[in-house]
């Protein structure tokens, strides 16, 4: 269940091939790529800088994959998250989940993204026509992450 934080871009075909290597029990590969848009919160965005907390980031991503594995029957999973400067249309994050069946792969992929959005220490700073600004956390992301708690405990 690898996680990687890197400045370099990634290739989804190569990443999936590496995960699937020599395995013939995989029936479902779900994936998600987060991409930089040229527009956010009502402004054009020309550049993005992604900061993170080295050490905690890897631990948080590992914990998210562990949690996903405890909830669904996964054969393997991957998170690649880029840091540094990015331009519109650049790939930012990749999540891939492998399972025997599609239900587990798709649900786990959505779960990992929801948790990553609220628990992994990354911060985005955008360059807009009126200057730089830190991106505000979306309330929608907290709501998305919270739905996975439904049915837990009280």
């Amino acid at each position, binding site marked *: 269940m690898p996680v990687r934080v890197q400045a370099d871009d990634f290739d989804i075909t190569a990443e999936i091939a590496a995960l699937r290597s020599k395995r013939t029990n995989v029936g479902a590969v779900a994936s998600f790529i987060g991409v930089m848009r040229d527009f956010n919160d009502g402004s054009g965005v020309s550049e993005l800088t*992604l*900061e993170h*907390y080295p*050490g905690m980031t890897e631990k948080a991503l590992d914990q998210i994959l562990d949690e996903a594995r405890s909830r669904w029957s996964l054969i393997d999973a991957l998170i690649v*998250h880029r840091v540094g400067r990015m331009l519109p249309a650049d790939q930012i*994050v990749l999540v891939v989940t492998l399972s025997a069946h599609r239900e587990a792969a798709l649900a786990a992929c959505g779960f990992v993204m929801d948790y990553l959005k609220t628990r992994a*220490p990354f*911060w985005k700073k955008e360059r807009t026509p009126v200057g730089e600004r830190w991106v505000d956390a979306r309330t929608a992301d907290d709501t998305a992450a919270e739905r996975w708690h439904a049915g837990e405990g009280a």
Partner: protein
Amino acid sequence: MATVDLLYFARLREAFGIERERLALPGAVATTGDLRRFLAGRGETWARELDPTRVIRIAVNHDLAEADRPLADGDEVALFPPVTGG
């Protein structure tokens, strides 16, 4: 005396003009919540950014922590805004 390493990220790092510092904890600072209130007492920028109405996350040794989390000598304590990756 307990000493902790403090790290600041994103908007807090820029606002405080500091990335990390080593802090000898005053006797009254036992938890992450105490620490936040102590740092808010440093003056205008600190008071504004750490005001109780502002949502701030605190991690201790790379794990997100609640405000009642006790601090120990050698802890790495990070303060940062809600995360916005992905």
